[in-house]
């Protein structure tokens, strides 16, 4: 049988998404409350950020608007993982209860099939908030605007997203080997909070860890340097799209390897 094309997967995803949104909208209260919840989460996150900067005018040579830029950048970069890969949080339970086996019987990509099941609409609020923050700080920093900058922005946002997705995939796939793997995913999720700070503020050990071990520095810091500090872009920034692709591919392989090894509980 021939391999299914990318277009095929887009079509299927669109259909599932459209239906899923329709059914979510039908639960109006739930929809409204979760939207409000998302707004509050973002506002609270912003307030703590703002309070910090009321007390320190700059952190390690990073001014308020630059930090805000990083903050907005990381919010946008974290949106795809929230919207499209949220089912990773359920993976552990599915695997543990044996329900995961149902995903193994379809003639389509297992990873796709599993992730397509959940679309988390809350991510959209986060995206809009991040976009607002980014545009505002962009303006205040007087970075100027050109088509090339926009292109760079898009490429580096995508690679930043891929890094986070890869981190989450790798963390989620721990459940294929471990009984109680929640803490792995939870740990990675907590680590992403550090992504919105310039990696230079950490000690050299953590700088190394955040770059090469748990590469959260690729979620906001390295890619945004391309826009923020165009005169002193380190090599790692330019490498971030490649790092992202390689890392995503490896995490996907790891996830699939675990899934293929999986053989369920007794029925």
């Amino acid at each position, binding site marked *: 049988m021939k391999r299914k094309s990318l277009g095929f997967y887009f079509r299927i995803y669109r259909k599932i998404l459209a239906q899923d949104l329709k059914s*979510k909208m039908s639960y109006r209260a739930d929809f409204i409350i979760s939207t409000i919840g998302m707004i509050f989460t973002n506002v609270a996150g912003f307030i703590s950020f703002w309070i910090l900067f009321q007390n320190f005018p700059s952190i390690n040579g990073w001014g308020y608007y630059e930090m805000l830029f990083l903050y907005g950048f990381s919010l946008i970069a974290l949106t795809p993982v929230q919207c499209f890969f949220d089912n990773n949080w359920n993976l552990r339970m599915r695997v543990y209860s044996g329900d995961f086996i149902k995903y193994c019987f379809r*003639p389509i990509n297992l990873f796709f099939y599993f992730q397509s099941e959940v679309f988390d609409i809350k991510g959209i609020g986060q995206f809009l908030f991040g976009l607002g923050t980014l545009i505002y700080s962009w303006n205040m920093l007087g970075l100027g605007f050109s088509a090339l900058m926009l292109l760079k922005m898009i490429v580096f946002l995508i690679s930043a997203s891929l890094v986070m997705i890869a981190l989450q995939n790798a963390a989620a796939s721990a459940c294929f080997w471990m009984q109680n793997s929640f803490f792995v995913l939870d740990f990675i999720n907590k680590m992403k909070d550090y992504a919105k700070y310039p990696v230079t503020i950490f000690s050299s050990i953590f700088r190394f860890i955040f770059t090469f071990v748990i590469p959260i520095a690729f979620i906001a810091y390295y890619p945004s340097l391309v826009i923020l500090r165009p005169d002193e872009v380190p090599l790692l920034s330019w490498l971030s799209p490649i790092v992202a692709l390689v890392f995503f591919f490896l995490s996907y392989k790891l996830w699939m390897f675990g899934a293929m090894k999986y053989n369920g509980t007794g*029925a």
Partner: protein
Amino acid sequence: MSNIIEIKNITKEFKVLNRREGLKGSLKDLFSRDYKIVRAVDNISMNITQGEIVGYLGPNGAGKSTTIKMMTGILEPTSGEILVDGCIPYKNRTRNAQNIGVVFGQRTQLWWALPLVESFKILKDIYGVTDKDYKDMLELYQSLVDIEPLLHKPVRQMSLGQRTLSDILAAFLHNPKIVFLDEPTIGLDVSMKAKIRTLIHALNKEKNTTVILTTHDMGDVDALCRRIVIIDKGKMLYDNDIEHLKGFFGYYRTLKIRVSGSLSETAEKIAAEFPEFSVSANDEWISVLVDEAKSTVMDVLSQLQKTYKIRDMQLEEISTEEVIKKIYEEGVK
């Protein structure tokens, strides 16, 4: 007729860690290389032809699921060969998935939040069903069960019976060559069970779909299967027609009588009188399982009548359930 499934001497072994007791034991287990090999499926062979309904039976832990997982390509056999529609399932998982449908009694494979018809449309795309085949299939479904009220209901709001029905319809939607049904009637009420059995039977007739049915409900087996395969502890115990099965242990009938006086005392006395038959007592009835090769039911009855005052009597043919129970408990001699 061609074989849709060919299984030749398959064996599946699992490596299981020998676990020790207590906290200290589990700490030791962390570093232990002390594995034992468990043989879940032991040298099983069978051929299944297109269009058959095969009851695949065995007590819990017999190795049924493991065999099914090998047929669906989820597990690779340790040794032996499986061919499903001419290809090796675990090497061609995607291609095999296109050929099969799978239903688990208590785990729906439909999209939880979506109305059934939307799940159908997505499945139609996934399996590449043509518009015409899809329409024909829905018409067939409509003629077999009243699906109209189900189609627009989200799966989440369905009763277990409706959900199982929907899952079965979804499994047949792409007209697969084989459908695996794993306890499709578990937890359902009597009328729903009957409905589902009728549906499976009709779909098998109409589409000539091979059905592999695992169940613990002998009602399913009686209603659907001509052939049954029984395994236990990974070994094949029986593979033949269901009619054949009933004569398997000789010809048995159960004589049930109701007597005046103490039930258990009388039962004990009868048991002593007929040591060759098994005697049990419950619900005011005393049952004597008579092996007609040894003596006839009428002989037993007339002998009992001499000693006891029989107020009422019933005669039961042995059910598939009882035969299977005997096989599970005693094995095959």
